[in-house]
């Protein structure tokens, strides 16, 4: 048998395979270069970028929970100027698409960031984070209110011709409503899910473990919620979906594709195994080979439910 075709196209970006690395879990790509050949994965998403440098939250910022972890990094990042000066040169050296995840504290910041990124040829696409639960001003409001989401996406859409991916929050009553709002406003694809808001408590000290009190839950614990949301949105909205949430193995990734995802992102798994994303792509290929599937695209939305 021939090797199965793992390539997919996502919002105009051609991926050699459906495996990307999730924003905030893979730095700016370079951090994992010792462990993972970037050309083994489909694309990578850089850490959430803002207009100005952002300090983020005090520490502790992370804590392990059962089957997952909470993080309250608070979107610490170098800001767009330093990004262009320090991080962009590396992106030029790899032939794997780099997608920039961005967020703004105000509507205008979203627009300005998108405009500036629009001019950078190293940037294959933009993933708009409207969902980060850690930053009061930005995340919460845009990510849980359909009208606000529509406004943000609309503005970003006008500010760039690059492929526009919108990343959704799971902390909503009806994710389909949010997905529709983003679709209507011109998103090319949807990423879901971001982290579920959670909390951990240090009993002996009678304090929250995280300095920020609450944080975002990621890892295998949230996979069932993520799969459900991908499936719900895939049925309702005609946009390609990137499935995210607790993906640890090639089988996990393929489950997300059955539920309707065109591609996936690997987050927390990068921490346990810095070569996870490459391994997952290999495991997907192996599964397809063993099961006589020529083309991974056959699995997209192929769930019989």
């Amino acid at each position, binding site marked *: 048998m021939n090797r199965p075709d793992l390539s997919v196209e996502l919002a105009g970006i051609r991926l050699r395979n459906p495996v990307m690395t999730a924003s*905030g879990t893979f730095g700016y790509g370079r951090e994992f270069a010792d462990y993972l050949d970037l050309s083994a994965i489909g694309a990578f998403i850089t850490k959430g970028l803002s207009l100005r440098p952002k300090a983020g939250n005090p520490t502790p910022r992370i804590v392990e929970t059962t089957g997952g972890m909470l*993080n309250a990094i608070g979107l610490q990042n170098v800001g767009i100027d330093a990004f262009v000066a320090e991080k962009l040169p590396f992106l030029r050296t790899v032939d794997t698409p780099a997608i920039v995840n961005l967020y703004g504290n105000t509507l205008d910041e979203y627009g300005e960031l998108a405009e500036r990124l629009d001019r950078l040829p190293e940037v294959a696409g933009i993933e708009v984070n409207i969902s980060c639960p850690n930053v009061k001003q930005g995340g919460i409001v845009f990510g849980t209110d359909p009208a606000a989401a529509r406004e943000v996406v609309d503005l970003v859409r006008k500010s760039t011709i690059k492929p526009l991916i919108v990343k959704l929050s799971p902390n909503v009553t009806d994710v389909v409503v949010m997905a529709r709002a983003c679709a209507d406003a011109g998103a090319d694809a949807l990423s879901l899910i971001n982290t579920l808001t959670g909390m951990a408590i240090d009993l002996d000290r009678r304090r929250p473990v995280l300095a920020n009190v609450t944080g975002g839950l990621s890892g295998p614990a949230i996979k069932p919620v993520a799969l459900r949301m991908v499936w719900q949105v895939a049925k309702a909205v005609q946009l390609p979906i990137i499935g995210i949430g607790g993906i640890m193995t090639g089988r996990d990734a393929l489950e997300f594709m059955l539920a309707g995802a065109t591609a996936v992102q690997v987050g927390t798994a990068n921490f346990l195994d*810095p070569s996870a994303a490459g391994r997952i792509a290999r495991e997907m290929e192996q599964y397809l080979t063993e099961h006589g599937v020529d083309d991974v695209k056959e699995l997209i939305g192929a769930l019989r439910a």
Partner: protein
Amino acid sequence: MQFKSMVLSNLEVSPGYFRMRMTAPPAVIGATPGQFVMVRINDSIDPLLRRPFGIFDLGTFDTEFTDCGRQSYLEILFRVVGKGTAMLSRFHRGDHLDILAPLGKGFIPGDPSGEKILVGGGIGLAPLYFLAKELVKSGKVRLFAGGRSKEDILCITEFERLGVETYVATDDGTLGENGLVTEVMERRLEGRSGDRTIFACGPHPMLRAVATIAQRLQVPCQVSMEAYMACGVGACLGCVMKGCNHTESTPDYRCVCKDGPVFDSLELQWD
């Protein structure tokens, strides 16, 4: 480097403290003291994240189980504090671990002729042993070791065997002087001069005290910090500490995993 490692031995050297030797690829021998390893305890999801440990020792030994005849190893010294370390304590020879090593930036030995002052609190002694082994090659090394009780003072014999002059202090006076190791160190340094460097590892309050004393006495001081870590490679920004130039608008965060764990004490903000 990411590699599979086999446990060679795992000894309880003091109640609740274990010294584990494991195989490593030859390249790991190039690690510098102060660098650390991230251990994946099993391929289950419990515990989920890797656990960081300083390198206690490394070397090679003759073996029958490789072709080349010599096998590299590394050692960690760990204290059982929670789930992951409890699991590790039950590992025995032949069990497997998945390791990332060596990670981070280690100690900078500096001028070989100067006097080296090591200050370790409790399990903070772990990386100082590897450091001492290197430092004794070129000069005088003193160790100030502190802990809650005599059970928390580890491997002093090993340090002495290297020729290190050791001073011990315990909170309860069950071994060495009664009191804080920083006080003992301060008394010892006070009023003397000469080319000296402090290398410290231990709980945060101890390191803060050491940094303060060092600054007052104008002795260069390197500290090895701890932080909750997820990735160990500078990607997640979970392990940061404020650098000396930090303000909210111009953040100067350093990753303990990548920019550290060893920092010049003047590089950090000690609030």
